C-alpha cells in the first residue's frame, strides 16, 4: 500500500500548482494511471479522499484515466495493445518491443478557482 505516499507527492504538486496560478481552490484533479504503473486506482481514490481534508483540494473531484499497455514492435513497426501484459507483438510475434504507454503515473491536469 504505497498509494498513500504517492498521494502525498500528488498533494505537494497540487500545492505548488495552486500557488503558481494564484488559486484559492482546486476543484478537479485528473490522473493518468498505466496498467503497469504499480498502483491500484481504487486505493489511490481512497488515499486521495483521506488526504484531501483541510487542504486546497478539500472539495476536489478525482478522475483517474486507466491507460492500457501500448507496445511498439521494432520488427514490423506496428503497435499492439496487450490487456494481458504479454510482451509479444500481436502481429508478428516478435518480442523486440518498446513500451509506449501503460507504465505512467501522471498528474495530467487540474481545475482551479481563482478570485479576480
Amino acid at each position, binding site marked *: 500500500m504505497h498509494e498513500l505516499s504517492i498521494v502525498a507527492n500528488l498533494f*505537494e504538486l497540487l500545492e505548488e500548482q495552486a500557488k503558481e496560478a494564484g488559486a484559492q481552490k482546486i476543484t478537479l484533479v485528473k490522473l493518468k494511471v498505466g496498467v503497469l504503473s504499480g498502483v491500484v486506482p481504487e486505493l489511490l481514490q481512497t488515499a486521495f479522499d483521506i488526504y484531501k481534508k483541510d487542504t486546497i483540494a478539500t472539495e476536489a473531484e478525482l478522475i483517474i484515466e486507466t491507460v492500457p499497455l501500448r507496445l511498439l514492435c521494432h520488427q514490423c513497426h506496428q503497435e499492439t495493445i496487450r490487456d494481458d501484459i504479454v510482451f509479444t507483438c500481436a502481429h508478428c510475434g516478435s518480442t523486440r518491443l518498446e513500451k509506449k504507454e501503460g507504465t505512467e503515473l501522471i*498528474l495530467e491536469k487540474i*481545475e482551479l478557482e481563482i478570485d479576480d
Partner: protein
Amino acid sequence: MTKRKERLVLQDLLGSNKKIANEIREKLIQQGILTANLLSSPGAGKTTLLEKLAKELSPAYRLGVIEGDIETQRDAERIRAQGIPAWQITTGGACHLEAKMIGNLFPQIPPDLDFLFIENVGNLVCPASYDLGEKLRLVLLSSPEGDDKPKKYPKAFTTADCLVITKADLIPHLPFDPAKVIQEALELNPQLKIFTISALTGEGIQDLVAFLLQQLQELRSSHA
C-alpha cells in the same frame, strides 16, 4: 468574481524520486560501483543470498549492503557477521525504500566499493514502483511461494533485469514447476536473465557470481 480555470500539468507523480535516483545512479557509476536492488516477498531468501555472495566475492571484491526493513537491525547484523559493511534503514512501517533514503546514506558509503547491494523491504508490490538508482534489479522468487507468481505481480517482473529462483533444493518436494515460472516471467519481460539457485547447496551460485562480475567489468569498461 471567482473564475474557474483549467491548468495542464503533465507531471510524473514519482518524478521527484526518479530525479534523486538518477543522481545516485550517475554517482555510483562514476565511482565504478555496481549497484543491485533486490526485491522479493518476505522470506524468499534475500539476506541468505547476500550472505552467500559475501562468502563468494569477499575479500577479493569489496562489498557493501544497504538493508531495508520495517523494524530491527537483524539483517544488517547478519551481513556484518560476514565482515561486510552494512547500513540498516528502518522504514518504521513504510512498505518500500525510496531514493531519498539511499541519498541520505550516501556520505557513509565508501567510494572504493565494487558492489553495493540494496535489500529492499520484503514486499513484491510496492518496491517495484521505486527506482533507487540501481544499475541492476533482481527479483527473487522462492520455490515454496508457488509457480503462479509472475503474472500476479507483473510490475516487479517487468521492471527487473534478473529473476532469481531461490530454494531450488526444495523443488523436488513441491508442486512447483520452474518451467512454468520461467515461461510466465519471459512473457512479461523477454529480456529477463534467469538464475535458479540454492544458497544452501550452492547450486547455481557460480552462474550468478559470474554474471555479477561480468556486469561489473562492463560498467567499468564503458565508464573508464
